[in-house]
C-alpha cells in the first residue's frame, strides 16, 4: 500500500511541476532575448515531432529512421499553401499537414509495420530517402535543392504582416506554437494512458503474447505510425514559417537520426523524456556549434556516451536518482 501512496504523491507532484515549467516556457519572451525565444520556438516544433515519434519508438518499440519525412511533409505543406496557393491560414495548414501526412503514413505504414526492429528501421530509412530524392528531382514542383519560400501565415484568420518578423515570432507566433504544443502534449498524454496506449506497450514488451491476448499487433502499430506521422507533420508545419524556407535537407537520413538522438538523449522510456532531449539537444547544438567547427565529433561522442553509459537518457538518470533518494528516505 505504501507503494501506492508514493505513486500518488509523485503524481500529485508531477502535475504542478509540469504546469510551472510550461508557464516558464510560455513567459520566455518576457525575460529572454529574441534569439533565445526563437530557439524555444524551434524547440516547440521539434517537441511536437519527437513526442509523436516516441509513441512509435518508446511505446510501440519501433525505431523509425525515416521520420524526418513526415516533418518535411508538414513543412512543404506550409510552403505550398502559403507560397503556391496563397492560402496562408495556419489552421488550414495544420489540418492539411495532418491529412496529407496521415494518408502518406497510412500507405507507407501499411507496408512498414509488417516488419520490426532493424528491418523496420531500414524500410523507413528507404522511404525517407525516396522522398528526399523525390523532392530533389521534381524541382518544378518542389524547387529542388533550393526548396520553397514559406510566407508568414495568418493566425486565427488574422494577418500579422504589420508586425516586424522577430516580434511576430517571439510574440504571437510563439504563443500560438506553445498552445499547440500544450494541446498536443495533453492529447498524447491521453493516448498513452488510454487502453490503446496500454496495448502498444504490451506489443513492445512481447508481441507474441499480446497477439494471444487478442491485441491486433499490426493494426495497432499502424495506428501508432499514422499518429506519430501526423505529429511530425504538425511539428514541421510549425517550424517552416519560423525558418521561412523549406529544403530537401529536412528529410535526409541524418535528420531522422537527429529525432532518434533527441528521444534517446532525453530518455524514450519516459513520457517527458523526448521533450527534455529536444530542449537539451537544441541548446547544446546552439552553443557547441559556435564553439568549434568540430561540433559533429562532440555530438557523436555524446550519442556514444549516452548509448553506452546512460541508455535511459537524462530522464532515466533523474529517475534513478530520485528512486535512490527515496530509498534512502
Amino acid at each position, binding site marked *: 500500500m505504501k*507503494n*501506492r501512496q508514493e505513486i500518488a504523491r509523485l503524481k500529485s507532484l508531477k502535475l504542478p511541476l509540469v504546469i510551472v515549467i510550461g508557464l516558464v516556457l510560455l513567459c520566455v519572451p518576457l525575460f529572454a532575448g529574441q534569439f533565445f525565444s526563437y530557439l524555444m520556438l524551434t524547440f516547440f516544433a521539434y517537441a511536437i515531432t519527437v513526442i509523436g515519434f516516441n509513441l512509435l519508438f518508446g511505446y510501440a518499440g519501433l525505431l523509425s529512421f525515416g521520420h524526418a519525412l513526415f516533418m518535411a511533409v508538414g513543412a512543404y505543406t506550409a510552403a505550398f499553401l502559403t507560397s503556391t496557393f496563397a492560402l496562408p491560414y495556419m489552421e488550414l495548414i495544420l489540418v492539411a499537414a495532418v491529412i496529407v501526412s496521415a494518408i502518406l503514413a497510412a500507405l507507407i505504414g501499411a507496408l512498414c509495420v509488417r516488419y520490426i526492429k532493424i528491418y523496420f528501421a531500414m524500410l523507413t530509412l528507404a522511404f525517407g530517402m525516396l522522398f528526399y530524392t523525390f523532392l530533389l528531382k521534381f524541382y518544378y514542383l518542389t524547387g529542388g535543392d533550393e526548396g520553397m519560400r514559406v510566407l508568414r501565415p495568418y493566425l486565427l484568420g488574422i494577418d500579422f504582416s504589420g508586425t516586424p518578423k522577430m516580434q511576430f515570432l517571439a510574440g504571437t507566433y510563439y504563443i500560438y506554437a506553445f498552445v499547440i504544443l500544450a494541446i498536443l502534449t495533453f*492529447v498524447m498524454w*491521453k*493516448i498513452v*494512458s*488510454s*487502453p*490503446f*496506449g*496500454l*496495448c502498444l*506497450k*504490451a506489443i513492445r*514488451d*512481447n508481441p*507474441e*503474447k*499480446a*497477439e*494471444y*491476448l*487478442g*491485441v*491486433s*499487433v499490426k493494426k*495497432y502499430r499502424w*495506428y501508432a505510425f499514422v*499518429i506519430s506521422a501526423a505529429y511530425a507533420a504538425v511539428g514541421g508545419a510549425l517550424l517552416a514559417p519560423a525558418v521561412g524556407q523549406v529544403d530537401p535537407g529536412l528529410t535526409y537520413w541524418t535528420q531522422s537520426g537527429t529525432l532518434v538522438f533527441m528521444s534517446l538523449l532525453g530518455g524514450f522510456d519516459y513520457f517527458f523524456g523526448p521533450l527534455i532531449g529536444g530542449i537539451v539537444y537544441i541548446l547544446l547544438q546552439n552553443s557547441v556549434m559556435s564553439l568549434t567547427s568540430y561540433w559533429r565529433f562532440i555530438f557523436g561522442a555524446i550519442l556514444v556516451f549516452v548509448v553506452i553509459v546512460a541508455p535511459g537518457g537524462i530522464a532515466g538518470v533523474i529517475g534513478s536518482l530520485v528512486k535512490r533518494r527515496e530509498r534512502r528516505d
Partner: protein
Amino acid sequence: MTNEEGKTAILSATDVRKWYGGFHALDGVSFTINEGEFVSIIGPNGAGKTTLINVLTGLVAPNTGTVVFKGRDISGIGPEKLSRMGMARSFQLVNVFPNFSVLEFLMVAVVSRLGKGTRLFSSLLRDKQITDGAMEVAHLFGLDAKKDMLAKNLPQGDKKMLDVASAFALHPEVILLDEPTSGVSTSDKNKIMETLVSASKQIGIKSILQVEHDMDLVFSYSDRVIALQAGKILADSTPALIEQDEEVVCTVMGKKECFKIFSSLQNKER
C-alpha cells in the same frame, strides 16, 4: 452440433497432419472436444503435443486436415482472431510482459475482451469496467496482493499463474493450457489445479484442454485423456480406462516408471 451422446461439440480436429521437412509432428490426428469437458493431452517428449496446441490455436496451419471451432474452420487463422472468437491459451515457457505490473498485464486482456483497444482518448485507470475486470481475475488467481509488482520481479510460480490468469481474463469459451504446472513445485501443483478449475467455473469457461506431464494431476482432474505418440493418437478415453492401459502408461511415463506401477498391480492380482 450435438453429437449422438447428447453433448455439444465445440472444438474438433479432423485428420490433422503437420510435417516439418521429413519429420511428421502430427500424423493424422482426429478428435472432438465437447462443451463442459476437461481434456488432458499426454504423451512423451516429441509426441507432438505442443505442435497440436499450436495448430489448434491457429498459430500454425496444418498441412492437411481441418480444425473446426464453434462450427468454423480456424486452420491458420492466427491467435489474435481466435482469441476474439473465444479461445485462449497459456504457454509452457513463461510468456509475460516483463515490464508490466500484474494489474496492467491483466488489463491488456480485459481491454481486448471488451473491445476497447482502439479507445485512444479514454482514461484506462478511470474505466471501472477494465480495472474491475482485471482485479476480478487477479483475485481468482490470488494475485491481488501483488497487483503492483512488475511481472519480471515475480517469483517463477507467480509468473506462470499470471500467464494463465491473463488467458482467463479473456473469458474464453475454450482454454488451452500448455503444461500449466511445469516448473512448479509438486506441493503447489494441486493448488494450481484447484484454482484453475474453480476459476474456470466462475468465469464460465466451457472446456479446458491441457497438456500435462504429471499423471496424478491428469488422472484426478480430467474428464478425458488423449494420449499422443509420434504424432498419432494412441488412446482417447476416460482417465480410469487410460490408467489401466499398460501400453499408454508405458509410452508416456517411460519403461522404468511403468514397470513399477504395473508390477505392483500384477503382484496384487497374484
